């Protein structure tokens, strides 16, 4: 009995691998398991090769396992392109239709065994059935999902030919029972769970934070976040405007927020690059704003559909001038909710732009997660009342935060300005005003107290894994394995990236002799940031590589045990 | 400027005075704006001159208020309207940052002459006698102003050629 099983389903356009995998994901959810579905596809809009990857487990995780137990292909057209993303081992099973070409050598050389399954022939036995439903049934049987859960998932997923789908899946289950099985341990005790993507979680977090205006320019892999928000905003009395480009979308969001309505835009690296100038306006004019960057592989257009943690430098340092702002990275798929909601809170309460660094991996993965505990409080902005005596929009307060006049409020009108200004907001080129306003803006950001939210800290020991974002789950899994074998390891996964928290990290690293910095980019952006702002032990080692391949727990585990 | 409205028999004395009042007020406003512009551009001498001219127009406006016993401002009636801006209001383009007092007085002279012509035309129109009498009185007053300004112009130096030369180029601001 296994606590985790990883399956991959591949095929070209029209094979329905995504649909089948989604049904399997829902069936696992209904059966009480945790599950994570990710996907990889070719560049074609229709008809391209695609691979759907599903990990079903008895514990919550949004990380991938070291290897896949089963790779099933409806056909092998160009599936070899995904070989690097679909690691197999001698214990793995490759399922394919013997009527199709043989499985590619790149998979077979892993030592995995091949099990023929005549998908087309079987599907032909049921009128209106498709081969993907046969595979679906076979996979469900191989991992021991209860038929009732599978049937319920099929009924809710299929819009037509439900009976044919059900019959084909039953046929597949019967065939699957004859193959090697990878049965799962019984599901964990029932608890409240959600099935959600990182992009949906970020969108929902934004709404719960109080965002009621979104400006959107489509970009992979952030588009689904915007598409989720569009109808959702309409339900809660907000609005979404599709902008002509990212220069417009961020400025629309700034305009709405200046008007007192919490605002957000979401994009990916190329869009964030275009938005950077206006983020500086948000800093200078002190207009709250949240930008979600669902990172993809860069530079330039890069690999638009695949993940990488390459925008860290841009998010931290992209702005011209000294421009204190917030950068938050969710460290799990579900955390996309809390991190985005937190970003809204900080942006609103500190009147500053906040960047949420999500990534394609979180954004487009769909997972069963423990129902997040949602902060019930929407963000609050400090505003000024009508005809406030001696009102100064940019008053030099101890906290750095000064009450904001909202258009429509009489007697305290002002001009929000990207030009340096004095306390009243009047443009000023004087050194003293520049220094005072600069310090005000720096003060409000540096004084924020994140409490425990700045990082997730797990375990104890003199070895520390220091990471952020979607590298957290594999690091956690590696930590679990190492600790089970008696290694004393701790995990520090940063959530608040800017402002830096050197004192907190110093405490978190107390007693640590060796630090392993894990990140998914080529140049070690996190390592360099840490070196600039924190006291790291000289034994800090970098474990990094560019996207799109996710870290596997085993490689981090080996880095822990082999210093 | 010779609209049929001006000649309308329906016009009242109060309407005429309201127009006259608005004219003075606009002149005061514009002189003040010129003074502010010149002050911003460090031409203190001309700024002060415009300020003085603004004060004079404000005085005229106040006098009308007192004469009419208006405690607040009347609406600007259509009768006796002028095309474009009021006769005593110089166009924004009249000023230059290096201008000299003589130029400012040229502007004042232009305004007073136009004001005189404006009232003169009404005085000679077929407006009600009360209006014509008042207009004639005001035209005479403006004539006096014209002479005052002309005398003033003799007391200030005439600008030499190249008064608007600036050895430095304009500045880059943003």
């Amino acid at each position, binding site marked *: 009995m296994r606590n985790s099983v990883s399956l991959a389903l591949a095929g070209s356009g029209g094979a329905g691998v995504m649909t089948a995998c989604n049904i399997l994901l829902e069936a696992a959810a209904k059966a009480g398991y945790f599950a994570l579905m990710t996907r990889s596809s070719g560049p074609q809009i229709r008809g391209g090769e695609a691979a759907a990857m599903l990990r079903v487990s008895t514990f919550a995780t949004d990380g991938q396992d070291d290897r896949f137990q089963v790779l099933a292909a409806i056909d092998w057209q160009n599936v070899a392109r995904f070989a690097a993303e679909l690691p197999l081992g001698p214990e793995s099973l490759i399922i394919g239709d013997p009527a199709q070409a043989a499985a590619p050598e790149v998979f077979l050389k892993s030592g995995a065994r091949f099990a023929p399954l005549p998908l087309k022939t079987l599907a032909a036995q049921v009128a209106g059935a498709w081969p993907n439903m046969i595979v679906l049934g076979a996979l469900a049987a191989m991992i021991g999902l209860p038929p009732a859960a599978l049937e319920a998932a099929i009924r809710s997923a299929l819009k037509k030919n439900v009976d044919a789908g059900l019959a084909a899946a039953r046929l597949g289950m019967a065939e699957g029972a004859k193959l090697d099985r990878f049965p799962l341990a019984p599901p964990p005790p029932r608890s409240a769970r959600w099935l959600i993507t990182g992009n949906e979680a970020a969108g929902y977090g934004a709404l719960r934070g109080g965002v009621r205006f979104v400006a959107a320019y489509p970009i992979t892999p952030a588009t689904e976040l915007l598409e989720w928000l569009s109808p959702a905003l309409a339900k809660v009395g907000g609005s979404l405007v599709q902008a002509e480009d990212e220069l417009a979308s961020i*400025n629309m969001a700034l305009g709405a927020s200046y008007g007192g309505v919490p605002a957000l835009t979401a994009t990916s690296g190329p869009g964030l690059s275009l938005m950077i100038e206006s983020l500086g306006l948000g800093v200078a004019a002190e207009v709250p704003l949240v930008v979600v960057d669902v990172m993809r592989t860069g530079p330039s257009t890069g690999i638009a559909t695949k993940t990488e943690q390459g925008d860290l430098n841009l998010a931290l340092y992209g702005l011209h001038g000294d421009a204190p702002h917030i950068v938050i990275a969710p460290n799990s798929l579900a955390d996309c909710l809390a991190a985005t909601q937190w970003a809204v809170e900080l942006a609103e309460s500190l009147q500053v732009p906040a960047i949420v660094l999500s990534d394609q991996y979180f954004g487009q993965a769909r997972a069963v997660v423990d129902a997040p505990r949602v902060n019930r409080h929407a963000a609050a902005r400090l505003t000024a009342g009508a005809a406030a005596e001696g009102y100064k929009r940019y008053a030099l307060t101890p906290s750095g935060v000064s009450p904001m006049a909202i258009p429509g409020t009489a007697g305290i009108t002002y001009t929000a300005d990207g030009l340096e200004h004095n306390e009243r907001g009047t443009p000023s080129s004087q050194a003293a005003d520049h220094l005072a306003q600069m310090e005000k803006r720096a003060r409000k950001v540096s004084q924020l107290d994140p409490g425990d939210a700045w990082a997730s800290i797990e375990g104890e020991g003199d070895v520390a894994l220091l990471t952020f974002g979607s590298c957290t789950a594999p690091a956690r899994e590696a930590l679990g394995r190492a600790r089970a074998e008696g290694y004393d390891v701790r995990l520090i996964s940063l959530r608040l990236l800017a402002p830096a928290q050197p004192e907190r990290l110093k405490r978190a690293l107390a007693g640590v002799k060796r630090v392993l910095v894990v990140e998914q980019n080529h140049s070690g952006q996190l390592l360099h940031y840490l070196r600039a702002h924190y006291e790291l032990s000289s034994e800090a080692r970098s474990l990094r590589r560019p996207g799109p391949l996710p870290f596997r727990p085993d490689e981090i585990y080996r880095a822990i045990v082999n210093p | 400027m010779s609209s049929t409205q001006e000649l309308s028999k329906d016009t009242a004395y109060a309407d005429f005075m309201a127009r006259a009042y608005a004219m003075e007020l606009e002149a005061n406003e514009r002189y003040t704006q010129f003074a502010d512009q010149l002050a911003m551009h460090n031409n203190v001498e001309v700024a002060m001159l415009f300020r003085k001219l603004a004060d004079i127009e404000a005085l005229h406006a106040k006098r009308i208020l007192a004469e009419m016993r208006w405690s607040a401002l009347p609406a600007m009636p259509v009768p006796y309207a002028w095309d474009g801006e009021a006769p005593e209001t110089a166009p924004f383009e009249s000023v230059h940052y290096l201008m000299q007092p003589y130029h400012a007085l040229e502007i004042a002279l232009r305004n007073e002459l136009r004001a005189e012509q404006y009232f003169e035309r009404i005085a000679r129109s077929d407006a009600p006698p009360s209006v014509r009498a008042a207009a004639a009185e005001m035209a005479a007053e403006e004539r006096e102003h014209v002479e005052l300004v002309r005398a003033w112009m003799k007391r200030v130096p005439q600008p030499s050629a190249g008064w608007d030369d600036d050895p430095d180029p304009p500045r880059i601001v943003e």
Partner: protein
Amino acid sequence: MNAPLSAPLVQAKDFKSDYKPVWCPGCGDYSVLLAIQKALASLDLRPENVAIVSGIGCSSRLPAYTSCYGFHGVHGRALPAATGLKVARPELTVLVASGDGDGYSIGGNHFLHACRRNVDLTYIVMDNHVYGMTKGQPSPTTEPDWTSKLAPAGTGVREFHPLVIALASGANFVARAFSGDPNGCAALIADAVRHPGFSFVEVLSPCVTFRPDQRGWKDLVHPAPVAPTDDPARAARRIMTDDGFNIGILYRGNRAPYHGAAKAATHAAAELEADFRIEETA
């Protein structure tokens, strides 16, 4: 007391701030500022219910010179900022102040889409055919043979025609005004604000420093000889064949303005969680 208590001239003062313009004395933008103040006063608006959004350039300094709410943002992006503000706060009156560089060059794409989107904004572009704040470079509306340091032989590039572009892109109100006539300009701006949807007012506003030749504009401008039309084809012919100094409302359309999706809330945000909850099978 037989006279009404307020006069537009005096109300216009309510829209002045105590911050003094840095524009060159003689600049047409002073006049446009006054025209905006007079227009807002004539519409019986209160300064706190009006927001003026701008980008970068001489003209874009305008918001701070008014007592309205102002937003002086980045170069070229005034229209998007105004769009966001108006969609989020539809009850505000939102004006946008721009110039030929800010609005037609770096912000050109936003111009097209703002016209097309037809949000209820009033877009006032002070066009002087030159970049003033950076010292006299050619802008999209500069004549091809106008020489400057950056283009010593002229640009050789045809001028942009903002009114035609506005009309073709879907602006709901297209007018040309002249800064030398602040009252006429005020009336046009008031009409533009009153008209629903995206209203575009191109104001010929001379630059006395870099384009002293534009002082001659006052002798070239003339009122549009025909009444406004709601027929885009007629308006297009009119705009494309006029001499560039035709002043007045050249097109007044009747497209419904864009309001965005904002309606009253039908759900509490927390209710949306229902979509994510898993119903387990027994």
